[in-house]
């Protein structure tokens, strides 16, 4: 664990270059390039606005786009992490450096995108005049989500080195995870039915999904009122950090064999 922080701090420049490279490669051959990071969330908000109007979908727009943007951060990290190691096989087999830099720089590149989306989101929220909650807590939530994303990315990038099935398993898991998380619905909307089915434990189960608490926290910070389950957010945060620690330990144990497998 300490080794990880030592490795990362002694290779700051490499990390910076890899983050830049990840961002650069994503927008290579595109005319608007980096501008897409801003255009993406703007279009997203517009399209969901039209969709909500047409479908009479029972959810308010700020809450929906907050959920989608936060979910996208996780989904992008998961998708990219599949290739964080195997896509850099030429580096892993030809040079010696702390391998953890590869998935970390990939997650950080996605974090840059996410932060820019957040700015667009916050501007939008200001325009539609939501009543903000304790915005001061936002960095805590973002860092927790970052820990979750990194932990998961470390696990997935490692698994994909040894088992190429990971890619297919992951797409299924991500779909299930998406619907288990209150992204396109509100927690308050499903809980009565869930409690009816499995009793009072339903709340604990629902919030043991780290993304549930993270989304709930974002919504609480952005739209203070009418949030269900705020007192259970701590469970989700704890799970996020546990996954982060598991990810780091797992990765550090497995990385010695990367050179042989690639």
């Amino acid at each position, binding site marked *: 664990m300490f080794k990880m922080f030592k490795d990362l701090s002694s*290779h700051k420049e*490499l990390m910076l270059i890899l983050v830049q490279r990840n961002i650069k490669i994503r927008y290579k051959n595109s005319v608007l390039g980096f501008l897409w990071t801003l255009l993406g969330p703007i279009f997203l908000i517009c399209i969901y606005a039209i969709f909500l109007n047409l479908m009479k979908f029972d959810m308010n727009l700020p809450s929906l786009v907050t959920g989608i943007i936060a979910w996208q951060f996780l989904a992008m990290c998961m998708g990219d992490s599949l290739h964080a190691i195997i896509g850099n096989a030429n580096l892993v087999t030809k*040079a010696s450096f702390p391998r953890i830099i590869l998935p970390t720089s990939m997650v950080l590149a996605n974090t840059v995108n996410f932060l820019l989306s957040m700015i667009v989101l916050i501007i939008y929220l200001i325009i539609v005049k939501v009543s903000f909650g304790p915005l001061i807590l936002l960095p805590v939530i973002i860092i927790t989500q970052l820990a979750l994303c990194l932990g998961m990315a470390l696990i997935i990038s490692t698994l994909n080195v040894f*088992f190429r099935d990971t890619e297919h398993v992951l797409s299924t898991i991500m779909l299930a995870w998406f619907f288990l998380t209150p992204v396109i619905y509100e927690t308050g909307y499903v809980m009565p039915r869930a409690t009816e089915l499995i009793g009072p434990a339903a709340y604990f189960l629902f919030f043991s999904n780290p993304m549930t608490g993270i989304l709930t926290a974002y919504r609480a910070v952005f739209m203070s009122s009418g949030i269900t389950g705020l007192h259970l957010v701590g469970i989700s945060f704890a799970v996020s950090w546990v996954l982060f620690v598991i990810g780091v330990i797992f990765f550090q144990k497995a990385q010695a064999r990367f050179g042989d497998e690639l």
Partner: protein
Amino acid sequence: MSENVITVENIGKMFRLKKSGYRTLKSAILDSLRFRGSAMHDFWALKDINFSVGKGESLGIIGINGAGKSTLLSLIAGTKQPTEGRIQTKGSMSCLLELGAGFHPDLTGRENVLLAGAIMGIPQVQMRQRIDSIIEFAELQEFIDQPVKHYSSGMYVRLGFAVAVEVNPDILLIDEVLAVGDAAFQRKCIQKMDEFRQNGKTMLIISHDLRTIQAISDRILFLNDGKVFGIGDPQSMVHSYESLSRQLATRGLRREWGTGEVKITGAEFSDKNGKLTDRFRWGDLLDAKISYDAPKMIKNPVFGFAISDSNGRIIYGNNTQIEKYDIPSVQGKGYVCLRIDNIQMSRGNYLFSFSVHSSDHKVNYHRLDNTFPIAVESDKPFEGFCYMPCHWKK
């Protein structure tokens, strides 16, 4: 060579190979249900490797394909972890493994150089100062801002080599760089390596180019079958490597047959001083001692030999009958000696065949065809393999 900068102790590297195909989740589950190791087999690419390299020393590594040379270098570079044993290195290290040093095809040459520097832990400021000399050495002034995917393989190698040397490491590891690139660039590389050597840097070089490696190494490590076959003086290591490759070259041509009433159990060659060798020079004397074993007494056997070129074509042959050397009988173990007073053959590798048959040629007791290789060094210019003394007159 006061201090060792690379110490390799009892290194072993095992690869777990699946008997067929890729490893998938399904196969991993199936394997764990089966008895251990049934679908995998262990392969030791390296075993019991011990050596050390002193500061300022150049160590060449030679061996046939698959001997474990590249694996050894990647263990020292740290891209692979040894299964057992310990490797210690001191000082900064720059490596050129399998060429290209991990360039990303979509980044430009310049970006890749900076990336390579960052991987080696060199501050960007320093890297920017060095980039001009890197570009100059690689002769890529026009192309440095193009993505490397548009590079020719020669350009790729030039850039890789330029980065590896210009970052000025304490230890330089090079895997087969001399095989690629045109003659001019190869010369430049060798020159650079010489310069490197003079500056008291340590180098480990893998190459199949025996002349070059002999010239630029202080010592040579000869790997065979994942083990140290020998380490020491470049010339003697290159000789024993060449002798081994000759043995291997006979494999496809070697034939053995006969009734076995007399068996040829071995043959060894020696020079005029009686020293065992398989290397001879133009005009040298060659003594061959051919051991046999005859369980029962055999009357009037005829011993013969033939010399073939490396493709197995006979270029000369003779026997005791032709030379009217009568052997009344053989029984038990013994040997016959063959002396060639004056080897007059062109430079190259040759294969000796030995045979023993009955005097009427009806029974072949034992024949070992193309089994014993020798090398001949010669500067005598003539056509063909075998020289015949001749005179011109007008």
